[in-house]
């Protein structure tokens, strides 16, 4: 009898059943409102509860806190299908809440912190934001200046944060603060309730894309929070942040790949419908070859991303591969968006066309969650340069 090698497909029937739920929910309940929510520059807050009820925020978290305790591939399926809501600001807000701000609580939190912050965030009752970047320190995390000074049983926070997704709506922040000396040895993570006196949302930033997500500039003036809300070890925050970045960057790469796939699907459909000079665009070699190139590159990006996820899932070192996946997928998405928009001609320049909004919204992907330049630094260091 010939032995068959197992296939590479990481998704089981259960993953696919979950994928169908996410897709149908996005297509039926979210996508029809995508443009209205962009125009209103916000989406309904109640959607956090809905996502919570559907189990979207607790995929990997333990059942005792309301999660489902599953593997990373469910997160991949979720992030891939979420792009079908056709509203990148909404997708980003939900991913920041569920996959960027709260996993570190599940990893490092005390039972009290999990009860106060993680469990209600999994239910979608308390909205979370991840607050790291500052006006003078974005990619350079070790240069953060927001301080948390000990005073008895409290910490007193002073400083500012910027580019904070969910910043205006958040009920609490997973906040990076300086508790020790300069450099990366003096940083800590702190759970910060936004009803703390002295906290202020200075303004919501007007962005190039993702209009439905609130991105805020935050100020802290003598904000007093209990020291027991320190997350993980004091002064080990830099390492916690770096570990947390891995999941965030993987999810960004997954979103980029799924977003590209959707743009090319749109382009293929349009190329079949739209005729010029007596034949459909899909019959023109210039577009056939262009789309064939993109489909090939997207497939490569997908499997680089899956490779990175496989390493992360198995607990192997994955920093290099995750950085490569994010760099490759997010850069590629810029070119794919450009060409898919170009193929749509004039229709690609009006916002009622999905690809036009996708082109606008994809731009942030080489900037947020670690710029492409930072990814290259990480990769070159990992390669011994």
């Amino acid at each position, binding site marked *: 009898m010939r032995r068959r090698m197992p296939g590479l497909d990481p998704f089981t029937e*259960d993953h696919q*059943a*979950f994928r169908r*739920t996410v897709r149908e929910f996005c297509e039926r309940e979210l996508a029809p409102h995508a443009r209205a929510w962009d125009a209103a520059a916000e989406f309904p807050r109640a959607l956090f509860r809905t996502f919570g*009820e*559907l189990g979207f925020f*607790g995929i990997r978290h333990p059942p005792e806190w309301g999660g489902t305790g*599953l593997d990373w591939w469910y997160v991949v399926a979720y992030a891939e299908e979420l792009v079908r809501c056709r509203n990148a600001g909404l997708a980003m807000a939900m991913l920041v809440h569920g996959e960027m701000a709260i996993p570190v609580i599940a990893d490092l939190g005390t039972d009290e912190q999990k009860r106060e912050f993680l469990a209600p965030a999994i239910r979608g009752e308390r909205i979370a934001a991840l607050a790291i970047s500052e006006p003078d320190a974005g990619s350079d995390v070790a240069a953060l200046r927001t301080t948390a000074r000990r005073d008895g049983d409290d910490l007193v926070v002073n400083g500012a944060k910027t580019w904070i997704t969910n910043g205006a709506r958040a009920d609490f922040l997973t906040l990076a603060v300086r508790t020790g000396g300069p450099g990366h040895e003096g940083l800590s993570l702190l759970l910060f309730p936004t009803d703390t006196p002295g906290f202020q949302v200075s303004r919501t930033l007007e962005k190039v894309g993702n209009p439905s997500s609130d991105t805020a500039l935050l100020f802290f003036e003598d904000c007093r929070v209990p020291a027991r809300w320190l997350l993980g070890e004091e002064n080990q925050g830099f390492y916690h942040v770096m570990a947390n970045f891995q999941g965030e960057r993987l999810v960004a790469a997954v979103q980029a790949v799924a977003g590209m796939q959707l743009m090319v699907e749109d382009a293929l459909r349009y190329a079949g419908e739209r005729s010029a000079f007596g034949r459909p665009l899909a019959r023109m070699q210039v577009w056939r070859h262009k789309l064939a190139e993109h489909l090939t590159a997207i497939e490569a990006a997908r499997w680089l991303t899956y490779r990175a996820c496989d390493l992360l899932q198995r607990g192997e070192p994955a920093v290099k591969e995750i950085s490569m996946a994010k760099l490759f997928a997010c850069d590629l998405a810029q070119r794919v968006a450009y060409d898919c928009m170009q193929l749509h001609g004039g229709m690609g320049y009006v916002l009622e066309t999905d690809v036009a909004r996708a082109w606008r919204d994809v731009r942030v992907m080489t900037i947020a969650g670690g710029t492409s330049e930072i990814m290259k630094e990480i990769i070159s260091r990992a390669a011994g340069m």
Partner: protein
Amino acid sequence: MPLKLLVTAKRVEDPESRIQVKPDGTGIVTEGVNYKLNPFDEIAVEEALRLEEQHGGEVVVVSIGGARAVTELRAALAMGADRGIHVRHDGPLDPVVVSALLAKVFEQEKPDLAILGKQSIDDDQNQAGQYLAERLGLGQATFASKHDSLESEAEQKRLPGLAVSADGTRVTVVREVDGGVETLEVRLPAVVTTDLRLNKPRFASLPGIMKAKKKEIREIPAASLGVDLTPKVAVRKLAAPPARKGGVKVADVDELVRKLRDEAKAV
């Protein structure tokens, strides 16, 4: 009074898939086609879950078909149904056979109410529910709908549209008829079929999908139920609708009427 509810869950082609007729016209090309729970059955499952939430009881889903029909049973269990029955049958079916098999399952399970989608979106026959009631000698209310809109507060609260009396002997059903709605009261046990505006079905949650894996699905070979499995209706030929031809522009109403009369033969 707790209610026992029997609900159908048919596996149908996903209309979002590309459906192509086989060149010989004997069926459709199944390769690359996705399948899903019949949307009318989805509404039936949702209604049963709401009745169960209101009255207590049990929701049993039944699907007739090949091995893959288990996927649709699991989808209904993931929404919240309690257990499944898979009537295993790999050959062709028609509503006569389906209703005979369902009648046998009904006799075994003895539910208070059977809720079926009014039709399945694959062949749109709209017969199984009516045949089932007739075979069992029960009252039926087809095309169940409700007065409240799908945007109403009652719908947001997931209240059932079917009203079962407190003593569990009757069900009041609002049904869509030409030009309005009709309200029927039917003695239980009964058969109800669901229309589109009865409810908005819930999505299966991730914890629901995981719980569904542990729920019981009992397989019953169709041949064991003592039913004649020969369909009375055979599909002779399937054909795709003719491709739409491009339109023409007309200068005025006279030309339009002339073309409608002479070329389209429509007037």
